[in-house]
């Protein structure tokens, strides 16, 4: 069964951008914790970064229920892999491939999982950072972003990312982009999480907020001398 063509799949509860960069010791991912319902910021503590096994982290934008289904699938995959007990563990490249198959096959059935996925990991010293979209477009790069992040964050990455950044430089770069997203993306809130994966393991931070700046002189009286404008 399942031959019904489901063409009325709308996203309902959605997450906004996810950012990812490679740095010297591994990968950093960042996202905010908002779950939007149309234009309403309905849920303010949605975790959109998840750990997958010991060496991979996944971030998603788009429909949250589909992201929850994907994390379930990946948990089952990792558990089955662990049960083989063969001294080998699935790494980020393998999981990227698996996710790509899942997303592309759903797209072929006109029943997509409405997410843009950012996957990052490190195995045996080899760093990996990639993206899989809801229609199965997939690629790897030194820095990736979904949604609005593509337009606002990636230009900053192209300018300021460099090979072998320290953790501090990486975090500062991501925070800079998160702030821009908070100012300019209506679906973004000032509550973020970051995930860090290195050979030593995975850390996902508790939610944190950034200092915002509205103290620009030009903001005080922007329509002075031009009443009616904004």
């Amino acid at each position: 069964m399942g031959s019904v063509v489901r063409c009325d799949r709308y996203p309902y509860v959605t997450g906004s951008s996810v950012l990812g960069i490679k740095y010297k010791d591994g990968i950093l991912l960042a996202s905010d914790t908002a779950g939007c319902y149309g234009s309403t910021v309905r849920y303010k503590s949605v975790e959109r970064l998840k750990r997958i096994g010991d060496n991979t982290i996944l971030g998603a934008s788009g429909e949250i229920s589909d992201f929850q289904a994907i994390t379930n699938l990946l948990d089952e995959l990792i558990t089955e892999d662990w049960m083989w007990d063969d001294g080998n563990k699935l790494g980020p490249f393998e999981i990227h491939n698996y996710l790509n198959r899942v997303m592309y096959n759903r797209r072929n059935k006109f029943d997509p999982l409405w997410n843009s996925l950012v996957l990052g990991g490190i195995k045996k010293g080899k760093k990996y950072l990639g993206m899989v979209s809801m229609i199965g477009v997939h690629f790897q790069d030194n820095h990736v972003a979904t949604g609005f992040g593509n337009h606002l964050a990636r230009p900053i990455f192209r300018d300021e990312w460099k090979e072998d950044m320290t953790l501090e430089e990486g975090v500062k770069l991501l925070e800079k982009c998160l702030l821009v997203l908070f100012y300019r993306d209506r679906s973004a809130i000032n509550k973020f999480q970051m995930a860090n994966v290195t050979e030593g393991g995975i850390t996902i931070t508790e939610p944190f907020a950034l200092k915002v700046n509205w103290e620009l002189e030009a903001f005080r009286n922007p329509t002075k001398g031009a009443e009616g404008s904004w």
Partner: protein
Amino acid sequence: MDAHGPHGPYTTIMAVEYNGGVILGADSRTTTGVYVANRASDKITQLTDNVYLCRSGSAADTQVVSDYVRYFLNQHTIQLGREATVKTAATLVKELAYQNKSFLQAGMIVAGWDKYDGGSVYAVPLGGTLLRLPFATGGSGSSYLYGFLDQAWRPHMSKDEAERFVVKSIALAIARDGASGGVVRTVTVNEHGAERNFFAGDKLPLFHEEIPPGRNSLLA
């Protein structure tokens, strides 16, 4: 293909965790278009002795979902040998909502008490996302409550505080949402079981520009 915001589900529902259990609340208006088909409906449905469901959206869809989940939980309880957990009930509701997302218009809140997690509230909005939260709202009336809840909700309320809070919230939504009205029904679930309550007419607080019933001045 844009996501439509809080729409449709012509109701106000909410559930709140307090220290010791949960309080579920709802209005009692069911509309078919502009006509109030039922002014005293009961939107809080029992799933098991210790888990209840608030329903918003299509009445037919939520009734069927709750019937299935009640049936599954009944079987599960017999096999398990002890009462089902709130998490299990919520996951079943989520499974139905998620796997049938193209066909259903159901925004639901699952809340109850079990001995492992105490009082728990789970939101299952359109699409079938599952979120455990300290409190949740739903339905068209919930749009009018975001500001109030942001300001007034606090964790670790007592049972009476929480019930007053729920009644006040639903009453505020009823005051502004045409699709919500009637009485405020609450269900309190804790380790001692479940208790239904009913707040109507002059038991509800009055707000801006609302007046208490009184004698017509012509007849005074």
